[in-house]
Structures are given as C-alpha cells and as structure tokens.
C-alpha cells in the first residue's frame, strides 16, 4: 500500500521525531511511504483567521502536490480536516473543486488510517509509562475521529492510562487565537496543564502538534513534570523506551 505522507509544517520544522515515528510505524505496518517534496502547509493558519483568499494559494499548491497519491496520511487531525474542507473552500470553482474533492476523499489522519483503512488495532507497540490523553477538538468534533487513538493506545503493552479531567475541553491553541487572544489562551492552556498534573501521569499524549506545542510550552513554563509526546512516538515504540 502506497502512502503519501503529509507531514505538516509544524512537524517538519519543529518535531522531526514525530514525522520519523510516523514513517517507521507505517512501514512496520506494511506501507510504502512517500514524501511528496513540494508539500508545505495545509493553509489552516490563514484560513482559520478568515484570510480565505490568501489561504487558497497554499491549498492549491497542496492539491497539486498530493492529487496523484493513493492515500494521503497525516499525523495531524486538524491538518487532515483542513484537506477535507478543501472542496467546500473551492465550491463553485469548476477546475479546483473536483481536484480538491479527489484529494479530500483520500486523506486520513494517522490513527484513523491505521484503524479504518489498514484495519489494525494492535500495532505491536510497548511503552512503559503512565499516560493521559488530550482529544484534540478539530480531530474529534470536526474530523470525527473519536475512538481510533484510544483503540490503538489500549493495545500498547505496559501502558498505564489515566483519563484526563474535562478531556473534551479545548487546550486553547486555535492557531492564531493563541497569539491574538493570548490572555484567554493562557487561561485555557493553564487549566489543561493543571488537569494533566492532577492525573499524575508522566506523559501527555495527543495527535496534533498544534495542541501539543501549546500544552508542552505551558507545561515547561510552569515546570510540570510531564513529557508531551505525539501518539506516533508511542505507537512506534516497540522494545526500547522513547529517548
């Protein structure tokens, strides 16, 4: 199965290990992973802020880069969701709307792809740690991927899981919201980190680097003894501990 990896700009620039884990995990599950080199950004930052026209340039570029792929897989729920919105963004455009639809129809978030397409629930991972999980809003409510991450985590050997209080509540990232409405964002991410600390977990896991950068940044600022990891890094962990 050929998979075109949509790594996301955040992973590309700030979290190479997430991309690496994603590639290795997919290969372990029998996929052939390509990385279309032209990819940059799904356009979310501008789109969500209302700059739809400006975001369209980024989107067209991504459509061109990915339209020949068989499957498009991304380790980011919000970025995968953005691809799913492309047909709506280009609605009425006789050239771009059909191309957008082609791309949207074959786009998956990573855990969604593993469970729904590869039909795998146990990736053979092992992780010795006490973890809690943040359900990213765009991934769960908007993309509709609610159970795949937990299904996969539940089969990770040695993993201890504690549920996060108010787990459905937004972490306060929201793209440009985190810098435009910084007062409110701070309160939201602070409450999220306090809830994480309450669980006593050593690790906070998530499936969207936007959320994770936000939470990690706050956790580090307040000195919380919690390591923030992407689910790909856990699922790719087989025998040795994550370094």
């Amino acid at each position, binding site marked *: 199965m050929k998979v075109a990896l949509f790594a996301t700009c955040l992973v590309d*620039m700030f979290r190479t290990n997430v991309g690496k884990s994603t590639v290795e995990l997919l290969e372990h599950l029998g996929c052939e992973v390509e990385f279309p080199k032209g990819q940059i950004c799904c356009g979310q930052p501008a789109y969500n802020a209302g700059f*739809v026209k400006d975001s369209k340039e980024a989107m067209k570029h991504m459509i061109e880069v990915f339209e020949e792929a068989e499957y498009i897989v991304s380790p980011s729920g919000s970025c995968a969701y953005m691809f799913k919105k492309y047909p709506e963004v280009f609605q009425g455009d006789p050239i771009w709307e059909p191309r957008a639809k082609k791309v949207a129809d074959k786009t998956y978030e990573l855990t969604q792809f593993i469970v729904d397409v590869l039909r795998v629930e146990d990736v053979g991972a092992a992780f010795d740690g006490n973890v809690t999980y943040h359900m990213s*809003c765009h991934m769960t409510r908007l993309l509709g991927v609610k159970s795949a991450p937990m299904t996969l985590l539940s089969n990770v050997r040695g993993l201890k899981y504690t549920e996060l209080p108010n787990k459905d509540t937004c972490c306060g990232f929201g793209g440009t919201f985190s810098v435009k409405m910084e007062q*409110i964002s701070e309160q939201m991410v602070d409450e999220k980190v306090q809830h994480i600390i309450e669980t006593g977990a050593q690790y906070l896991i998530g499936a969207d680097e936007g959320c994770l*950068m936000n939470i990690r940044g706050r956790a580090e600022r307040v000195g919380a003894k919690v390591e923030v990891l992407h689910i790909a890094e856990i699922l790719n962990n087989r025998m040795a501990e994550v370094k």
Partner: protein
Amino acid sequence: MPMKVGSEPFKNRVDEGIQNTFMRGAVSGAQDRLEVKRLQAVEELGDWETWRLLGEQIRQHVLENLDYYLTQLSDNVAKLGGHVYFASTAEEAREYIAGVAKQKNAKKIVKSKSMVTEEIDLNHHLQADGLEVVETDLGEYILQLDNDLPSHIVAPALHRNKEQVQESFHSHHGYEGSSRPEELTKHARKMLRNDYLTADIGITGCNFAVAETGSVCIVTNEGNADLSTSLPKTQITVMGMERLVPTFEELEVLVNMLTRSAVGQKLPSYVTVLSGPRGEGDADGPEEFHLVIVDNGRSEILGTEFQPILQCIRCAACANVCPVYRHVGGHSYGSIYSGPVGAVLSPLLGGYDEYKELPFASTLCGACTDVCPVKIPLHELLHKHRQVIVEKEGRAPISERFLMSIFGMGSSSSGLYNMGSKIASKALKPIIKDSHISKGVGPLKNWMEAREFPAPNKERFRDWFENRAKGGNES
C-alpha cells in the same frame, strides 16, 4: 438595558473577566454541572441526534416561511381579541409599549425574564416615563436592585454569590436574614407577591409563539410569568420575530429540547400557553393582550449566510460548553447575548464596530456546534464572520494582512518555503537557548507570555526523509 453591556474595550473586559476569580469559579462550576445534567437528559431521552435533526428542520422551515407564519400568527391573535404591533426597530417597540402604559394610566409593571426586552432597552425607557418596572425572575430581580447586568442567558445572576445577594437585600430592603438561598428566596417571594397583586401591566417575553392558534408559550420554573400574566389587567408579550412554531406539535418538540439542553430538565415547572386576553366570563387573566413582534435587525440576517443563527431557541447550551466563556464570563462579551450564540449574533445585531473581536475570541473547537439542539453550525458562522471582517470589511490590522499574504506566498512556493525553513534555524540562533526561543518578537512575544516556544529542529523532517532515502543515517 440595551443589548450592549458596559463600555470598556474588549481587551479590558476580557482582562476584568479573567481577574474575577469568584465569577470564574461560578461559571466553570455551573458549566460542569449543567453539562452533566444536559448529557443525562439527552441520554435518557435517547436518539438525541434524531431530535436535533427534527429541531433543525422545524426551525429552518419556519425561517424559510417566516412571512407566512407571522401573518398567520397575527391574524389568529387578532381573532382572539389580542392586539398585534409589528416593530421594525427597538424604538418603535418601546414607543408602542410606552403608549399602552400611558393609555392605561399604568404606574407599576411586573416583568418576567425576556432577553428581547433587554435588547430594546425597554426598562430604562419606561422608568424614564415614571413607571415602576419590577423584574420578577429571581436572577433578574437580584440584578435590577444593583443595576447590574446579566452574564448568562439562562442564569443571569451566575456571577453573584449569595453573600452579595444578602448584602443587596439588606441595603435595599433592610433584610435581616441569612445568606441561605432558601431564606433569600423567601424574602424575594414576599416582596414580589405584593407587586404582582398591585401591578397594572404584566410584560413577558415569549419562548415560542404558535402561529396556528395565535398562542404564546412562556416557560419558567418560578411561576413568575404566570403571576405576571394572570393578575394585572393588561398583558404585553414581546417576541423576537423568529421565535415561533407552526402548531402545538412543533411547540412540544422545541420546548422539550429547550429545557433539556438548557438545564437538563424534562420540562420546567411551568409551561404556559396563553391565547389572547382572558375569555368571556373569566375572573383572572388580562383584559387586554398585546403582542409586540420585534425585528431590530433580524430581517437583515434573513437570506444571508448567517440565517442559521435565527434558528436559536435561547437554551445557552453553547455557553455551557464554551471554554472561552468559561474563563472570561458573560460580561466580557459586552452584550446581553454572550457565549457562542452571542459571538455570532451580537455583531449582526450590534455591528462590527462594537463587536468585531468576538468572532476571533474562539478556537473554533466546535463544542458549541456539537451541543446546539437545532444544529446551528456556530463555529462555522464564527469563521464566516472572520472572513467578512478580514476580507469584505478589510478590518484586519495591516501587520496581520501583510503577514498573511507572506504566508500565502511562502506556503504556495516550495522554493520560498525551503529557503525560509532552512535558514530559520540559523537565523534564529541568536535568540535560541536550550533549544527554546528565549526572546519573543511580534506574535511570538504573545505566545511567550504564557509558554515556552521551541527552536526549530536542527534537521527538518524532510531532510531526514531525504537523507534516509539516499541511504543515510537511520537515527
């Protein structure tokens, strides 16, 4: 008071809200409890998604035929002997009501809770005419004593604690009792009982009007709307023009969804359906009934991409799950309509000059859309506002417009991106410390007020992938 609440700029209001520890505790506690109750109520009912689809369909049908149903409603109210006044503006509505009060030589008015009467600033104008206007909903009664403003659509005095209420009753009424809510409520009951019996006019809002029968349905737990309408000689009901249903059958569906979504109740203590003035031979009930139907900007929303917001049945479930509302409280919205519905509606009714920040005070997390009983796509409407504000109205700050067009360029050209991201690590070196950015500038500065920001990876993912493909490091 009018729709606008307070006069401070947005950032100040937000700051004030964040600093108000009691209010935040009250709001987050309320949110947690009300959401649990709502979930219990909808799970118990079962098949909630089907109910939501039905609720949406009913509301959409009514909006698409609003001209017909309002005509039918008014015809039927008139047939029952009630009077109908169509008010295009807040001013027209106020003047009509003031006119009725004058005609009746009224001195005292009792009111049950009505958001639309606050929107049109009715109380102040009636008071300026020398009328005594008494709010009978306990929360509004408490607020009225201190000229305070509501902070939640359903529980308006959420931001006040019982000691504050005790103090208020003491200073205004000489109340000597404790701060126990039962005692405070008994006191309010005693004070208001006399008001009901001596008022000349009862003014109510309208949860839903029923077009087929010319009825208005009012929903309370306290019974205050019932006392306000059975005892005074004149009743005036004020309704937002979109608040109606075709028949009793749709009424029961929406009342049911309203109360489950708002507070997790199957039904509130009182669902009262009033049709016209009192019947011939009745000894209580109003002798005269007036229905004031208010537009005040709603018709401008019809036929636009924002039309879905008119589906709203004012349950405030959206506010009860909103993480932003949780931290800043209702007053920060600067409008009597707070929470997600307020963030969509206030700019439409009150204009972008006053309310342009509200649509941006959201992460578009979608929690509101998820709980809306009539499936209003709230987070999408917030996004639409952003698009209008930024693109049509051109209101984004120049720096942001500039950054976004750079973004557009940078993310559509692989060459530009490659260059930019490659040199990022080197260019930022002076401000990198321990693999974090140590000094923030511009938007980064805002980020760093509350969090650490990582330095870019030394090796970009794409370079790792390429190296590996070439047979390089397998690190």
